[in-house]
């Protein structure tokens, strides 16, 4: 295994498949201008888990051309290969098996089986079938799914190590569209629930964390910001702020005012 071994006994650590992470922000590595910007944004985000895609090698590639895994070394980051672009369970399985070989018997994968190119919504029936097979083959499956609480529970029961409902369509930046569904998923879960997709800006990430999500996975919100490195830092703080607010427990909402200064002893 080449995965990073994050520090144990962290306060309020995110635990996935037996490993602990200090950061609850997971980031993708697509859509950046170049590998240097990718590296700087990932570093500014503080993320320890980073997703990558598995694709055909360019045959015309110049020797010595930098590789993504040179700037994001697997001994520093937990690499999470995805099955993006797969529209069938079979394609997703094939991609995961290639990723396992590519990363030296790496077992942690992000499963996504897409239903259509316009919405990039998951094909949940194919996702369930693929998840079941991957778990049988010894993979640790973090699974992208819809915000359907019943399907989320089924995926947990199949043995997925994390369930990752969308907040809104991939790359849409619309924020958490159905807080009550996300809340229901969290309340019923025994594995980490990570909002994956749809976050647009820092407040969206904070809202997801305040709902009680265990983490947020995002890519476009950082990569398509005017200044991706600064947005990566904003997201890091939003995740920390949202998590602390969740743990602190917010005050009740009231319809009318409640004075903050004591009413006794006023001079007027």
């Amino acid at each position, binding site marked *: 295994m080449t995965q990073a071994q994050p520090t144990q006994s962290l306060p309020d650590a995110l635990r996935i498949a037996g490993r602990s992470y200090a950061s609850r922000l997971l980031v*993708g*590595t*697509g*859509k*950046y201008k170049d590998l240097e910007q*990718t590296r700087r944004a990932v570093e500014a985000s503080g993320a320890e888990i980073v*997703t*990558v*895609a*598995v*694709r*055909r*090698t360019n*045959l015309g*590639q*110049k*020797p010595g051309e930098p*590789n*993504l*895994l040179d700037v994001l070394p697997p001994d520093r980051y937990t*690499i999470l*290969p*995805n099955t*993006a672009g797969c529209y069938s369970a079979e394609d997703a399985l*094939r991609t995961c*098996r*290639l*990723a396992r*070989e*590519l*990363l030296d018997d790496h077992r942690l994968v992000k499963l996504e089986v897409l239903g259509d190119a316009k919405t990039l919504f998951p094909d949940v029936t194919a996702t369930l079938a693929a998840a079941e097979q991957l778990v049988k083959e010894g993979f640790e499956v973090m699974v992208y799914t819809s915000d359907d609480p019943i399907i989320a529970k089924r995926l947990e029961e199949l043995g997925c190590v994390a369930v990752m409902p969308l907040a809104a369509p*991939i*790359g849409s930046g619309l924020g958490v569209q159905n807080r009550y569904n996300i809340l229901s998923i969290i309340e019923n879960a025994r594995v980490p629930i990570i909002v994956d*997709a749809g976050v647009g800006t820092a407040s969206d990430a904070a809202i997801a964390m305040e709902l009680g999500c265990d983490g947020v*996975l*995002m*890519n*476009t919100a950082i990569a398509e910001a005017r200044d991706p490195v600064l947005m990566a830092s904003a997201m890091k703080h939003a995740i920390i702020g949202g998590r602390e607010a969740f743990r602190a427990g917010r005050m009740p909402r009231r319809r009318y005012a409640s004075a903050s200064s004591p009413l006794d002893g006023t001079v007027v």
Partner: protein
Amino acid sequence: MKRSDAPLPVYFLAIVMQIVVNGENTAVSEGITLAELVGSLQLAGQRLAIELNGDIVPRSRWPEVHLNGGDRAEIVRAIGGG
């Protein structure tokens, strides 16, 4: 696996065969190994995975697996993705 019976053009100095690499027809020396193919594509030393005719070939076996005409190889790597 059956070798291609197609006649080879006479102007080749070495004996070559056709294989398909990442969907592209590619001429390679007859009987080369996967390790030699990776070297000839200037990909040696990179972090790759190879699927040959639909089956993954572990990196440790690249030096001993010889290719046949008509073989289909997929050579993949990690790139940016979300």
